[in-house]
């Protein structure tokens, strides 16, 4: 999936015919054609805020990335002058940028896949455990979901501390493992794996709880019918449960992609506000260019490229979201 995909209309496989659930109320909204101004009045405050505080900066982000904008422009010593595509050619010609892009994609893909698979497995497991254990697991999941990201990051920093972290102490108890004093953040991939674990730990509860709610909507009769027809556990899951859950799964994946491509505080706080080169993801890289190197224009160009990349990834799913919006 590349940024180029944004320009072509997203090709989505034709929607699988919805599993046989009657939808008695189709799109049925007449009667409002005469009240055309009303919805716009209702929307006005929301749109106003979004345009002012989101739209304007978004436009500014674009213009910034075509300007030369450093410290002296920030303080107003020099006017910002247009430099055309200079910022983009600098960024795109930089090998480090591409390394960061690749790292971000691998990291985000890992997070999303890991989150969705673990989430689905736990959701299915919850259907099979005793009631009391289900309640306990739910409480723990909601507690970890509700943990502020900053707190969670701080706690993981403590768990993985090289000298006094509990993880090193526990792992060292295993025969043949000696990890006391091991610094998990000495190498980028290992450190990012820890951060991935942190992201997944925080993201799984939402997926589990949402999928669990979805699973309760899977009609028992359908599953039983499939069993009677000779489907095994996997068959029932693959051909009955999964198609019914598909809209939820698509939505969860969309949200996960957005969230995991936007991972910032986890890396930033874990590396004490100065992520090393090996830890840079697109978001921190853009921040670094703008606020550490003080090249706001280049930072904006990177941020803009990130947005384009993300739109490419998400364009496919956008239609699914729209379909949900269309139904009622």
């Amino acid at each position, binding site marked *: 999936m590349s940024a180029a995909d944004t320009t072509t209309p997203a090709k989505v496989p034709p929607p699988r015919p919805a599993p046989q659930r009657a939808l008695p*109320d189709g799109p049925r909204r007449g009667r409002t054609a005469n009240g055309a101004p009303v919805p716009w009045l209702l929307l006005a405050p929301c749109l106003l805020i979004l345009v002012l505080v989101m739209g304007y900066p978004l436009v500014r982000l674009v213009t*910034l990335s075509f300007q030369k904008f450093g410290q002296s422009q920030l303080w107003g010593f020099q006017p910002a002058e247009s430099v055309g595509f200079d910022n983009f050619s600098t960024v795109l010609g930089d090998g480090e940028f591409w390394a960061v892009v690749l790292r971000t994609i691998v990291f985000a893909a890992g997070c999303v896949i890991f989150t969705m698979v673990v989430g689905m497995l736990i959701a299915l497991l*919850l259907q099979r455990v005793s009631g009391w254990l289900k309640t306990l697991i739910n409480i723990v999941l909601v507690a970890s979901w509700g943990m*502020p990201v900053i707190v969670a990051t701080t706690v993981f920093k403590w768990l993985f501390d090289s000298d006094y972290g509990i993880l090193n102490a526990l792992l060292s108890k295993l025969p043949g493992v000696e990890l006391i004093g091991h610094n998990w953040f000495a190498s980028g991939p290992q450190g990012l794996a820890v951060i991935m674990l942190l992201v997944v730990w925080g993201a799984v509860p939402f997926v589990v709880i949402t999928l669990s709610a979805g699973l309760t909507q899977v009609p028992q009769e359908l599953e039983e019918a499939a069993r009677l027809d000779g489907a095994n556990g996997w068959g029932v899951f693959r051909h009955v449960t999964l198609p019914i859950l598909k809209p939820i799964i698509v939505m969860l994946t969309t949200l996960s992609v957005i969230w995991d491509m936007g991972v910032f505080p986890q890396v930033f706080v874990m590396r004490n506000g100065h992520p090393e080169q090996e830890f840079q993801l697109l*978001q921190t890289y853009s921040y670094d260019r703008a606020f550490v190197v003080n090249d706001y224009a280049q930072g904006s160009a990177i941020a803009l490229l990130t947005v384009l990349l*993300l*739109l490419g990834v998400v364009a496919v799913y956008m239609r699914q979201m729209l379909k949900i919006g269309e139904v009622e």
Partner: protein
Amino acid sequence: MSAIATGGRRRGTSRLGWNLLGLLVFVTAGFPVYWMVDTAFKPAKDAIDPDPSLLPTGLTLDNFHRALDIADFWGPVGRSLIVSLSVVAIGIVVGLLAALAISRFAFRGRKIVIVGILAVQMVPAVSMIIPVFLLLNDLGQYDKLTGLIITYLTFILPFTVWTLRGFVVNIPRELEEAAMVDGCSRTGAFLRVVFPLLAPGLVATSVYGFIQAWNEYLYALMLMSQENQTATVWLGNFTTKHGTEYAPMMAGSTMMAVPIVVLFLLVQRKMAAGLTAGAVKG
């Protein structure tokens, strides 16, 4: 619990296996939270024991005292409260109006509005920090709570609109129409019929928005100065050049997390239901 009932008939014997697996999930998922609270109440010297005990070793409030001493705690908490409550109060009203518009009316441009709101949600907040920083700087809103409030509003609005839309579409239109047939005005029908049904969803969405605003970190860090820091940024005070004071930091984390987690426990069931309700219908 019907799933359990059906499963129980055929797989009563494998229930033990599932439960063991469930316990493993319980322990793994809960451990970070447990360890945070455990460290927070530990005597400081046990926290840096090279062979730490997994069970609580003692009960002391020293770490909490230290956490409160290290930097002003109530100031940041107060500022976070002001910001989060304002964001929610404004966001829920504005968001509900917009949600009603896109879920109950057919009008030209509806689709574009929905696309716009969804698209805004997809722009990573971090990407916007540079222009937002410059904008607030130009407006004289740098280091002002109002600047932070406006900024957070744009983060929670798309989500609020989309979630409330989910709650609204779940209320049958027929109820509203029946009230109107019985002589209610459109507004009357909304206030008497839809609003009461919507109330739990509104509460849940508000609490969720509150939590999001409370937890935000980057903008709070970039847009506020050291002396006006908010609660999330306050947590950074434990790490200095000389190292990190982990035990007090865990005490601080506990203070930050517990109220939020409790709030979250209260509303999450409603949230999850609201988020999926629309999806399953599709």
